[in-house]
């Protein structure tokens, strides 16, 4: 990534404001928590935004999806398949079994525009909503047919 001026926290908060978002300070400096109402789950999703904390070249937009400690092989297959159909968002599982949806947004001022953040937030919300029923299948059914669960999501059929 070339050198250049990075977005400051004030500029990032200015973007949140311009996009009409509310935010809370995160647990670490240069991190924020943004609540978004999820119509699908009737809950509030807490999206974490970091200003170059994970990677100095990017603003990280992260949504914790769920805990996937059981049937890890099934979960990893589900993620590999979902990552092949979902645009922009990437979904991973860490060693503790935490599944998260990520999007990176360029942090350099010349490369950044506020709507990029909106697209990033929409992508993590969509990604999490898409993958949850498939992961539920993995967690609840030892013999879950992941491909059938994926197909059902893509065709909008009954949830697995």
């Amino acid at each position, binding site marked *: 990534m070339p050198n250049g001026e990075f977005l400051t926290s004030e500029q990032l908060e200015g973007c949140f404001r311009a996009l009409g978002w509310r935010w809370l300070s995160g647990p670490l400096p240069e991190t924020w928590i943004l609540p978004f109402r999820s119509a699908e789950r009737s809950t509030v999703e807490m999206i974490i935004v970091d200003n170059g904390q*994970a990677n100095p070249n990017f603003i990280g937009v992260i949504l914790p999806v769920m805990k996937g400690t059981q049937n890890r*092989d099934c979960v990893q*297959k589900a993620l590999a398949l979902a990552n*092949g159909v979902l645009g922009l968002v990437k979904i991973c599982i*860490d060693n503790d079994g935490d599944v998260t949806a990520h999007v*990176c947004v360029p942090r350099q001022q010349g490369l950044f525009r506020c709507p990029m953040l909106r697209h*990033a937030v929409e992508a993590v919300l969509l990604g999490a909503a898409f993958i949850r029923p498939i992961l539920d299948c993995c967690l609840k059914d030892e013999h879950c047919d992941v491909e059938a669960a994926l197909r059902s999501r893509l065709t909008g059929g009954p949830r697995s």
Partner: protein
Amino acid sequence: MPMLSRQQAGNFLANLGLRQVDRDIWAGQQWLVGRIFPVFVALREAFVEIEIPLNLVTQCDQILLHRLFNEINRQIAIGKFAIGSEIDHGGRMLVLRADLPVGTDEEYITEESMAILFAVAFKLIEKHFPEIENIFRQGCQISGASSEDQARGILGRLRIFHGSEEEHRA
């Protein structure tokens, strides 16, 4: 670093030698790790995406591959290795996808961001393709099964094969 409009981003791709194959999609090819890969670039409303099919088609559970993809994907900021959609002849193509969000149609993306996306995608193929191919060639694994179950699975598949041979002969 001027922002390109979506239209200008398409012209940028055409100037690189990519061919427009659909309203939002440009196609080309790239020589990497001693072979030619197709390269597709999609200029979507919310993001730009480079997709490179790895020319490896998976037709069964390849747990080691799913694990490797997750490991790599966790460590990189942009890009993801994944299993693509089902293809005509059965099975699913392994793919690399690298995406960045865009602004608006008028202030869509910079040339620099597009160049970064190409560079990251090609670098990821160069770095990880040999290991991916190696693990892909190890074939199928049965999820969480005991060695007895695995043996039963293999016997079952042999019986199916034997059956289809007999059908073929008949």
